[in-house]
Every structure is written in C-alpha cells, then in structure tokens.
C-alpha cells in the first residue's frame, strides 16, 4: 500500500493552482484533506501524474457569512462546521450532517469542499448541499463559475467540475425564518458511510408545513433531492398524513443499488423510515423556532 510515483506541486495561490491544473488536466488531482485521495493513492486505485496540494493556499481558508450565504473556502476542515457556533445558527443542517462524517480525526483533516468534490454517493455533505441548495464555485484560468449543487453531482465520484477547474468555495444559503432542519442516517457503526441518510427541512407557519426539502445519501448514484416527497408533505393539511405520504413517496421513487451491507429493498425501507423521523424532528425544530441542530 504505497502509491506509485507522482509529481507533487504545492502552489501558494489559486492562480498558480489553476495554472497547474490547466497544464495537466485530467492527469492532475487536487489534494486538500487527503481523507479519500490518500487511501486511493496507497491502494493504487488513483494514479494521477501530478498531485496538486492546495494546503499552502491561505486565501482559501475562510468560513464567513455574507449577505445571506455561508461561504466555505476550499481549505476549511469539516471540524470547523461543528466547532464554530455560528454554523449551527446559519446553516443548521450542515452543522448536524457533518457530525456523521467519519470520526473527529477524519474531520480534523478532511475539508468540506473536498468531500463535495469527491462526490461519494453515500456521503453526508453532498446530500446536505443538495437539500439546502448550495452553490459550488469553480475557478479556472478562463474564469469563475457557480454550479448549483443539484447540477454538480453527475455520477458516483463524478462532478460537473472540468479537469482544469478548482472547487474554491461552497456557498450555503442561510436558513430562513420558520425553517427547521434535521439530518439522520443509519449506519451499522457511527462514522461509516450511510446505508441511507436523509437531510430534511421544513418551513412551518400557522401550524402547517409551507415548504420542505428532502435529500438522500446512499440512495442512488448521486445525492437525490425528492421533490415528489416534498410536495406530498406540503399538500397534506394533516402533518402525520403528510409525513406518511412523503415516506411512501421515498420508498416508491428511490432505486438504490444493493451492496454487501444493505439490499436495495432495505435501503428503500430505511429511506422511508428516516424520511418520517427526519421530518418529525425538523418539524419540531421549525415549530419551536429553534430552527436547527441541537448539540
């Protein structure tokens, strides 16, 4: 488990980094926290010719709130989302979801943008990004573009990023008033990839659900937002009926693959169970106006 030979570059600025990417294209691979890339290198499953280490780029180390958006630079470690109290207020779903990512040691190194760019279909942060409608900022020599999360994930481990682009920032919209959020997942062991995970958001007003968000991890080749289930929830005047309808919708629509840990059938069952549980939790948070993740 030693990697094959690769060239190592550690640019100090975004401009230098995108220059390297422009020169090497698909032969280059960006290293941030290394929690996925380094094992892949050591297993010789990944064989980039050039590893572009962005850990020297101080300009990418920011976590700020700006005009209704939480901006997470590419060097921000996952641990900061749970450590910095403001995240719990601004994007509570993110603060809750991140605690399911591996273990503290992994979150101390792993970056938020790294997890998004790696695009593991069972990972938590991509599902959270899809649920809240995050936007991903890609930088290349030809400029900057923003990609909505739902268009960003195109397949397992595959994103809309071009080989010459660097994901420099993820932007998460701050939660609106009356919203409550919850992230739940089932894994046999805490910290594993989810057998199934659900990110849920509910906007409550006058004792009714006005709006909802539901996105799933481990339920398909990419994180899935399930608008049918959201609609089913909002359409029902009775909350419990709505929750049941949303759960049934999840079971009906999702077609996850089975693997050694869970059959497709079990995953669909879990999606339905977690849909109901997450919606109830999100509802309780929305209707008590606390909005978000409780520690």
């Amino acid at each position, binding site marked *: *488990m030693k990697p094959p030979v690769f060239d190592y570059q550690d640019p100090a600025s975004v401009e230098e980094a995108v220059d390297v990417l422009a020169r090497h294209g698909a032969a280059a691979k960006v290293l941030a926290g290394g929690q996925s890339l380094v094992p892949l290198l050591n297993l010789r499953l990944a064989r980039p010719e050039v590893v572009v280490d962005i850990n020297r780029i101080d300009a990418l180390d920011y976590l700020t709130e700006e005009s209704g958006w939480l901006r997470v630079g590419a060097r921000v470690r996952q641990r900061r989302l749970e450590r910095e109290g403001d995240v719990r207020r601004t994007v509570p779903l993110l603060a809750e979801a991140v605690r399911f990512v591996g273990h503290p040691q992994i979150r101390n190194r792993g970056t938020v943008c790294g997890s998004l760019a790696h695009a593991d279909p069972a990972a938590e942060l991509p599902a959270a990004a899809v649920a809240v409608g995050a936007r991903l900022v890609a930088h290349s020599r030809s400029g900057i573009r923003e990609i909505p999360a739902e268009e960003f994930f195109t397949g397992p481990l595959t994103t809309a990023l071009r080989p010459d682009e660097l994901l420099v920032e993820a932007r998460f919209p701050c939660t609106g008033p009356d919203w409550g959020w919850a992230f739940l997942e089932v894994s046999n062991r805490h910290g*594993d990839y989810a057998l199934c995970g659900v990110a849920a958001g509910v906007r409550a007003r006058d004792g009714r659900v006005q709006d909802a968000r539901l996105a799933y991890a481990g339920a398909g080749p990419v994180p899935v937002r399930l608008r049918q289930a959201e609609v089913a929830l909002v359409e029902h005047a009775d909350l419990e009926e709505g929750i049941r309808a949303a759960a049934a919708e999840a079971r009906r629509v999702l077609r996850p693959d089975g693997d*050694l*840990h*869970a*059959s497709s059938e*079990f995953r669909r069952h*879990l999606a339905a169970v977690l849909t109901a549980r997450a919606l109830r939790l999100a509802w309780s948070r929305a209707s008590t106006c606390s909005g978000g993740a409780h520690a």
Partner: protein
Amino acid sequence: MTTRWLGAPIKRNEDPRLLVGQGLFVDDVQLPGMLHAVVLRSPHAHARILRIDVRRALEHPDVLLVLTHADLPPSLREPLPKLIPHPDLKHHKTQYTLAPDKVRHVGEPVAFVVATSRYAAEDAAELIEVDYEPLPAVVDLEDAAAGRPALVHEDIGTNVAAHSVQRVGDYEAARARADLVLARRFVVDRGCASPMETRGVVAQWDPRARQLTVWDSTQAPIPIRNGLAALFGLAQKDVRVIAPDVGGGFGPKIMMFYPEEVLVPLAAMRLGRPVKWIEDRREHFVATNHERTQIHHAEIALDREGHILGVRTVFLHDAGAYIPYGLIVPIVAECTLPGPYRIPNYHAEFRAVFTNKTIVSPYRGAGRPHGVFVMERLLDLAARELGMDRAEIRRRNFIQPHEFPYDVGLIYQDNAPLVYDSGNYPAALERALEAVDYPRWPEEKARYRAQGRRVGLGFACYVEGSGIGPYEGCRVTVEPSGKVYVATGVGTQGQGHFTSLAQVVAEALGVDVRDVHVVTGDTGAFGWGTGTFASRAAVVAGSAVHLAAQAVRQKALQVAASLLEASPEDLELADGQVRVRGAPSRSVSLGEVARAANPLRGVIPSEWEGPGLEATRYFAPPRGTFSHGVHAALVEVDPETATLRFLRYVVVHDCGTILNPLILDGQIHGGVAQGIGGSFFERLVYDDSGQLLSGSFMDFHIPTAVEIPEIEVIHQETPSPLNPIGAKGAGEGGVIPVPALVAQAIEDALDDLELEILRMPLHPDALFELIQKATRRGS
C-alpha cells in the same frame, strides 16, 4: 507483614514504555543496508498459473531479487510442514511457499520481490506478468462438501479433508425415548481477528558467524526457530527468533509457516543484507488466517421436564484452501458444545472441507463460540417449546459442584480425555441473573415497551478449555543488583505477561514487582517452549515461573542462612531482603545473597546445586483446565432500522486463581468487544467468484467505543487442582458466549415476532430480512 503481589490489581510494568512509543515492534527494527520485500499475490480465488514472466521486474533499477516457485531451493518447493496431524485428517494439504502451478485463494503468494524500498518493490511487483486461467471458485461450504463446482485439490478427488466422529452413550436410543426432539440448521460465518499490528518479519544473516536472526510477529517463536533450522540446514543454536512487542495475536499469528516467515530469511541469506517485510492491511485481510465458518445440523432430545437426554450435531467445517493447522478448530467446537451441562448421550460428527478461501486456523474462541452458539440456542428453543423459563432449563441440566472432576467422555484437542477439573456453574448463573435482576425482568421489559422501546435480555453460559500442555519452562535469575530476571519461551502479544508473570516471582521472592524483568519470546534468552495459544500462558508458563521462583527462594534461604548464621526455617523474604523472622535488623539484601552465591574464591557447597541465585523449571500439565462463565446483557433493538444498542453488559467469570484482576478485566473487556464485533459488525463477505468484498476497514466494521457498552465484571474463583498456582486460562472467555447471547437478546426484545436466530454474525440487513419475514408470517 509482607506485601501480597499475587492477585493484586497492579498497573502493568510494560505500559510506561509502550505508551510513550518506546515499544519494539517488528517494523521498529531498522538495520543498516536493510532491503524491503513485497509479495505478489493471486487476485484469483482459483486459477491455473500458465506463465510467470519476471523480466521487467528484474530490470527495475532498485530491485535486487525476484523469486517465484521455480527459484526456490528444493526444500522450499515442497508444501510447508504439516503442523498438527490427526488420524482422521486423511488429506493434510498444506500451503506452498510460492504457488507452483495453481492458486487456491485470493492472496496466495505467487512471487516475492526485494528492492531498496517498499515503494520500488511495489512498483516492480506490478511489472511481473502472470497469465492465469481462472477456474470455477469453490465458495459455498455445502457445495464444496459435495465437490461442487470444482475440486480445490484435484489429486485427492474430493474437497473433504477429514471426517471425524465422537460418541458418548447412545444418542439414537436417547432420542427414541425423548418427549421433545428439536432440530435446526445453524450457521456461523467467517470472521477474522484484525490485530492492530499486522504480521511482519525482518531477517538478518551473518555470513561469518553463519547465524540467522529473525524478528517475527509470531505467537510461537521457538517452533519457528526449530522449523527454520530444519529448512535451512542450520543448528537450532545458530537461529535466533525474536518475537518482540507484538500488537495483538488472537491466534492467527501462530503458524508454521506463513510463507513470508520462510521467504524473508531466504532472501536475507541469498543477498547477505537484512530484509524487512511488513504485511499491509489489504494483504492481512486475505493472507492472514481466518476462522469461523461452520454449518451445524444439530438436534436436542429432552424429557418433558427439560432434562437433556442427548444432543447430536453433524457439521461442516470450512478449512479454507489448505489445512496446515489440522482439526483443532472443529474438535474444539464439538468439545465445547456440551458446555456446563450434563449430556449423557452425545454424537458429534464433522467434515472438514476445502474451499477457495483464506486458510482457517484458530482465532480467539477457536471453535468455542460455535459450540456455545449451537448448544445455547438449542436450549433457548427447547425452553420456548416446553413453555419453560430459559434460566430454569439451564439449572436443571448443570453439572453440580460436587461432580468434579467431570468426564465429558470426549477426546479434546490435546488428545487427552475431556475432563473438567473444577468449577461452580450454578453459582455463576445465579450471580449473573442477580446482577441484571432477572426475576424482575418481565416488569422492566414491559416498562420499556410502554415507552415504545424494544429491549431484550440475553444471557449465555460456557465452559472454556484452556491451559493445555505439553509444557513451558522458565529461568529465574537474581542478579547482584537485586533485580530479578525472568526468561520464558512463551511470546507475549499484549496480555500483560511482563506484569502477571513478574507478580508470581515477586510473590515468591518478596521483591517489588517493578524489580522483576520478564523476557518473553526471544529464543536467545530461553529456547524451550511451544507458544502462546489456547489461553495457556498464565496457566502453563505461569506455573513454570512459580516453580522456578520457588526453587530460587529455597536457594536464597539456603545461602542467606549461612550468611546470617541462622537456620533457613527462621528466615523470611520481604522487601528485597532475607531476614531473620522477628529480628529484622539481622538481614541481607537479595542482591548480596546473589553475590554470595557466586563467589570468586572458596567453595560452593554441593547442596547449592551450582552457583548463582538461579533456577530453571518446567511445567507439564497432565491435561487442560476448564474456566467457565456467564454473560448477560440488555440489548435495545430498533426494529425499524434493524440496528442494536447494548444498554448493559455483565460478565461473571471464573478462571481459577486470579493473578491480576486489572489485567483480567482488560482481557475480558477486549474479548467482549471482539465478540460483539463478531456478532453484529464484522463480516467477511465473499462474492460467487471467491473475491473478498469486505477487505478493508471501510467495509469490515470493527466496533468502536461508541458501540461497545461499559462492561461489568464479576469475578468468581474456583482454583484448578491441576497446577501449583490454581490458575485457569482467561484469554477467550470474553468472546465465546457473545453470539449466543446476542441472538437470545434480540429474540427477547422482539418476542412478539417469534424470531429464530440461527445464524451469526447478524448485521442490520440480515436482521431486517428476519423481521420482514416474521412480520409477513404474522400478518
């Protein structure tokens, strides 16, 4: 008053060194000019090797040696030694150092590359071209037994390596007069130990002295030394094998040989430079032995009061691709099955079957969890059928304290009769039931149920065979500094021998335990012994240590008597001094006694039997000694997500005289964690082509501190009459009953579904399926 060392909860002597990173594990061995080796392994479960071309690897500038089967000396081209033969083992197939013409499991060594760095060696291994012709893989155990879809070893015309039967009484007759006969098929799937340290070997050859030194993360350094000497034509005295600090053994690190244990010394001798090979985790999953798969067709016959009339099991044992370790695991399984119960008629029959999977040899429990799972499940199901309390059915069948020694009527793994030496089975169960307040459990359970929570209580009983022979030895030396040096042949893999064995010596010699330095696992320090396995180190080596320490004590008294001009009977040993009882000012230090025992001039009295304060003694037990225990736990089941949470875990444990309760608790805690892992988390999943799908810690889920509950240990001490310290083995009791307990607890939590859990390990997907089936059945 003299300080009591034996039985005291002393913190471990070795921990300060280990905790600050001053341990010496095999990978810590750094030698000038050292080279690094990599093994090229088969990616196929079953395939013919058509061609191996190593030319491109040899052209790599950093490569010094590439070996294939054809490059080996004649003695290494033969299959490796047959470790433990048995008359029923008709086809004792052992693995090759490097595969000659066929590979039989994923991970089987095909070529060996030595280069200046591990990186270069891995690069070069990729340059070796091997043409394989894949053959149908023998994966399913029952298919394998029927010879489908292929033969693992064509020359023997079958996949069945052994067929063995043991009988006590007449099961058929007992069955004929039974009120209830209950039969089920039980499955235990593969598992593996996953020690923190994988395997590793470093070898150094001194061509002038013609001496070979090998650092090996083995549990049996002395047999390895003897085997290497034989294979390389060297004197045993010229081969030194050191098992330094070893980061966990659990059974699989006792083999003779793993191919690397031969290849690394061979390469060092060929190249005249030290060579290191460290197994990586990916290799470990396929190249270090596994255990566990057995399929039992078991039957119990009872009268209507729940008395066992007889038990029968006919089972298949998955040996993997080769069977170097013989029939130990299936024999231990059939011999552990009767447990603490009186079973007048017993029929045990097994077939050991080759499959295209990693080799099977003992892993902590080594057949015991299987036997206990089958027996305890049979009793649970019988109790349900008879409408009887599950504790009561056990009480009615326990062997009673006055019945020891109790002859079970079988022949055990050491070829000696299976005779329980001592124990108190009913008391252990009552202690456990009291700890979890079993009488009030129905109300407790109802209270949980009212909160919408599904909590089950499970408990399971077991008897653990331990401390088998043939022998271990020990040398105890007191130096003039007053420090005591102890050398024994058993290796240590984290069990705390540096402390527990030191306590035995400290107790005998009245010295501080921190002044007793234990050396284990270095054939240069002590060259006689067999190894650390079958929960035997404390029992067998501990007894040898006791005998040697007592001999040194006698000599110290003798020598001090002449120094103090007193009679040996009037002397006592305490605080590192030999002193006249009642006159503490008349004393000499033990160091002074040691100096006096090794004078530069003068005469050594013949009754001293030689110079120095030193003695070597051996202990050879007549047969094994039998620990026992009961585990009980509260387990919460989430039936919607098919996941578990352990709320409480209680262990009542009886391993005879306790040497150090802290160390014992550690053994039990670790064992329970491993047992829980093997019941609901860790799985070795193979696909139809014999590929291991769960070959990394991403998919092989070892439970963490989050999943393991606090473990409460209650000690019971029924000493063994078979050894001078009264000790019994404690290495495996933590693991043994866990699968049986988990099954019972889940059934209890979901009692309305009337589940029957007949397979271990479970996992959420499997539990989901069971729940679904039961729900469909119910509706």
